[in-house]
């Protein structure tokens, strides 16, 4: 059968499996998966997916922690003509169920390690027509399963599925302001455009060993997996637990000779402060990319001094339009506190800064950054209302889509043409690189029957990021059964771990603005970042 090759995101793995079959593709816990092994395992999974009825563009959930089963899950879904959907392994089961139903996800690749959550999922969805088929796990009561042994028994060969580069490659869920997560759709063409940007900017080669530090549901992972595959390099999968210990993480960078890292400033600041850098030989590291949040110049300067042989690039771009601008950081002078620029638009992207009446700004005044890019999302899954709101149509000449994505980010263009990030237009915040809509946190707290009203706000955490805090009023103010601990417990069942407020205060009443709204600014006790 025919296959529209060359423009598909997984074609690189097929090509390297032929050119350099024994080269390392994935590395985890001291074990290596070669390109030939990765392709064979992916083809076997693709065969199992197709036998179980997977159709073109069907969504395949990837519910796995870091491990050597991750690559085959992603590429197996793609080879079968499906789109993969990263599902955060730490997500509460209620949220997992929402994503499965919302995404119409009927196939989920998982493993025995996820059994506790899968058992709770089976209690909620088992024996219903919407329950997904689980791959990579032995029997789970109430669910149809295809075990690893059954997958391994399939033939490893090209499934010969016809798709084009306009087809869906992945859905990525993120925080939604309505209290439910929302998913953005990315095509093969868009993902490939992002992957090629990474390949070219960092000049990746087959010798590179790129860390996969971010979780799969974080869009930095698209660079880690797909830019590396374009180059025929190795992805070094960093166990989730290691990411929480800066000294273990830097030890892994040294031991695995990691050459390229793309992460959030928070991780790099921790590495600087608690990574025992004076005892590590990081001479193999050559390029650090960071994004997701502003990097405090003082900390970046200190890190650059510790790692003088490493290049640093600030990458800006919401997950809807990844890597649309970037800036290679030059040495920072002592005492220079100028925020790190987000740079200029990358090749394949074009920007427009709009004022409040949607007119382009040309005189250097601040405005909302709007982006059109070859990496642009196809829009939000099942959310025409949101698409209407965040895309700005402006027909024009040139090799771009004729829609701009409204980033919601306020920027200003300097005289040198570079953009500075000034803040957000809405209530989306970043906490250690994760996007969180504060409205979603408030919805989760307000869904507790004893809560009257909830307000979420943030404070600087001292290492360049922000922590989430919340306050609530109770329907019955004398309800002694409700404590901050019960509310936190409730929030933990609704929200991903990073979105659970660090502290929840029960207050008698909220400060109000003159219009009667909760005065969240008054709740914030903002301490400037040191």
């Amino acid at each position, binding site marked *: 059968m025919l296959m529209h090759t060359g423009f598909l995101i997984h074609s690189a793995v097929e090509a390297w499996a032929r050119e350099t079959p024994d080269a390392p593709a994935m590395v985890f816990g001291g074990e290596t998966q070669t390109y030939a092994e990765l392709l064979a395992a992916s083809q076997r999974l693709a065969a199992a997916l197709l036998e179980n009825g997977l159709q073109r563009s069907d969504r395949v959930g990837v519910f796995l922690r870091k491990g050597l089963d991750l690559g085959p899950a992603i590429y197996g879904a793609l080879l079968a003509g499906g789109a993969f959907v990263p599902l955060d392994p730490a997500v509460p089961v209620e949220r997992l169920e929402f994503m499965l139903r919302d995404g119409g996800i009927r196939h989920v690749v998982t493993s025995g390690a996820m059994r506790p959550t899968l058992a709770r999922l089976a209690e909620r969805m088992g024996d219903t027509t919407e329950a997904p088929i689980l791959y990579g796990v032995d029997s789970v009561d109430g669910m149809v399963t295809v075990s690893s042994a059954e997958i391994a028994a399939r033939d490893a060969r090209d499934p010969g599925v016809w798709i084009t580069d306009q087809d869906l490659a992945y859905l990525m869920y993120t925080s939604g302001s309505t209290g439910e997560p929302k998913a953005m759709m990315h095509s093969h063409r868009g993902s490939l455009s992002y992957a090629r940007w990474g390949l070219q900017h960092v000049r990746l080669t087959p010798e590179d060993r790129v860390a996969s530090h971010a979780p799969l549901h974080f869009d930095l992972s698209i660079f880690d997996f797909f830019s590396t595959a374009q180059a025929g390099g190795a992805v070094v999968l960093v*166990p989730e637990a290691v990411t929480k210990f*800066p*000294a273990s993480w830097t*030890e892994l960078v040294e031991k695995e000779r990691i050459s390229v890292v793309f992460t959030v400033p928070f991780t790099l600041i*921790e590495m600087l402060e608690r990574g025992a850098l004076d005892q590590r030989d990081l001479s193999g590291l050559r390029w650090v990319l960071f994004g997701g949040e502003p990097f405090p110049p003082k900390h970046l300067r200190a890190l650059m001094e510790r790692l003088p042989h490493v290049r640093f690039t600030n990458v800006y771009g919401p997950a809807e339009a990844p890597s649309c601008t970037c800036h290679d950081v030059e040495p920072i002078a002592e005492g220079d506190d100028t925020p790190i620029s987000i740079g200029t638009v990358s090749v394949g992207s074009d920007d427009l800064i709009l004022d409040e009446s949607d007119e382009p700004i040309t005189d250097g005044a601040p405005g909302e950054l709007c982006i059109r890019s070859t990496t642009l999302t196809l829009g939000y899954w099942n959310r025409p209302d949101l698409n209407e709101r965040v895309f700005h149509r402006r027909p024009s000449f040139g090799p771009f889509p004729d829609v701009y994505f409204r980033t919601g980010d306020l920027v200003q263009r300097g005289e040198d043409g570079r953009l500075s990030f000034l803040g957000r237009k809405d209530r989306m915040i970043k906490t250690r690189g994760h996007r969180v809509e504060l409205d979603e946190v408030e919805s989760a707290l307000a869904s507790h029957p004893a809560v009257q009203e909830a307000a979420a706000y943030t404070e600087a955490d001292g290492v360049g990021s922000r922590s989430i805090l919340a306050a609530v009023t109770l329907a019955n103010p004398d309800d002694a059964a409700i404590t901050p601990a019960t509310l936190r417990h409730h929030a933990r069942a609704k929200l991903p771990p*990073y979105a659970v407020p660090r*502290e929840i205060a029960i207050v008698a009443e909220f400060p109000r603005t003159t219009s009667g709204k909760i005065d969240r600014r008054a709740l914030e006790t903002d301490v400037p970042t040191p």
Partner: protein
Amino acid sequence: MSLEEIRQYIQLELLLDETAVIEDDEDLLLSETLDSLSVTRLVQHLESTLRVSIPPEDVTLENFQSLNAIHAYLGSRE
């Protein structure tokens, strides 16, 4: 410091949930009981309570994976 004291500190100060069940050999990272911020707070607490200095190179997954591991590490520092 006893295992029980470490457990209580995690329950009361880090999770703010005294009813949270933490087994002695439970993987605190996989169960999302600890994150990087709470590891830092735990280390500071141990340093100030026990009047020891815990060097960054000792704050590793091996030494902090479970209550048992933390307890054993602290024992090795006595």
